[in-house]
């Protein structure tokens, strides 16, 4: 299962990165690179759409936390779109639900 990454800039000032597939130690570095690149290109209001994520472990989580830190230290933000119980559970257990803004739909995330 390959990781799918798709960047959508059709909703300025937001940049949406749509993540699909399994986010683990193998694939997470690709997401990290993509986030670093987006920040270096000047994108500041990022939304990671995780609805298509079928698996997320602590390495994937670490990359999201790293992205959030990077953005906040650049006066930006990273929020998430996710309704999947399986994925939300990982945020819950690790106490990161309180750290990220997590929306149920992309519309909600764009409104926020």
């Amino acid at each position, binding site marked *: 299962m390959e990781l799918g990454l798709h960047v959508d800039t059709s909703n300025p000032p937001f940049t949406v990165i749509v993540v699909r597939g399994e986010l*683990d*130690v193998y694939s997470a570095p690709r997401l990290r690179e993509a986030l670093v690149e987006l920040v270096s290109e000047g994108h500041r209001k990022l939304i990671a759409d995780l609805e298509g994520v079928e698996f997320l472990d602590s390495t994937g989580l670490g990359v999201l936390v790293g992205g959030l830190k990077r953005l906040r230290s650049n006066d930006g933000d990273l929020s998430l779109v996710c309704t999947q*119980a399986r994925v939300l559970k*990982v945020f819950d257990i690790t*106490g990161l639900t*309180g750290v990220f803004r997590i929306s149920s739909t992309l519309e909600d995330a764009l409104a926020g």
Partner: protein
Amino acid sequence: MALVAAGTKSVELSVPSRSEYVAVVRLVVASLATGTRNLAADRIDDLKLAVSEACTNAIEANRKAGLDAPVIASCWEAPERLEVCIADSGTGFEPSTLSAHPEVSDPERLNFERGLGIPLIRSLVDDLRFESTPQGTKVWMTMFGGPDSGDATTEIVRTVVERD
């Protein structure tokens, strides 16, 4: 609690210490738990995640030890439980000394990009044991729930078994 598994060994899988093989280990464990057990879907997801964390650590341990050793996943099946052991040939560690995470409300929380793995495993599986020596580490994870019992047993057995 003894460090030997309670059931009969069924599957043993050996993969290279490379990140692309973690998915294969997840797949095998999930397929065992689905095919020959009767675990609920969310418990299988829990087990996949726990296995993924343990494999990630095992790969890292082999890498740090400079070894081209495989990661070995063994599954043991007993009527009321499935045990999975993830073994590496790294230099070991002392699980009891792992530092705790700051509280969720603590602003420091954001600094923890790592160190989430073992706390996650702990909250996902029914029982977790480490067997770590300078020659390698074995992480034993137990999920209750037998081939026929489904999840009814899980809760019961969970309550009966003493956790340390």
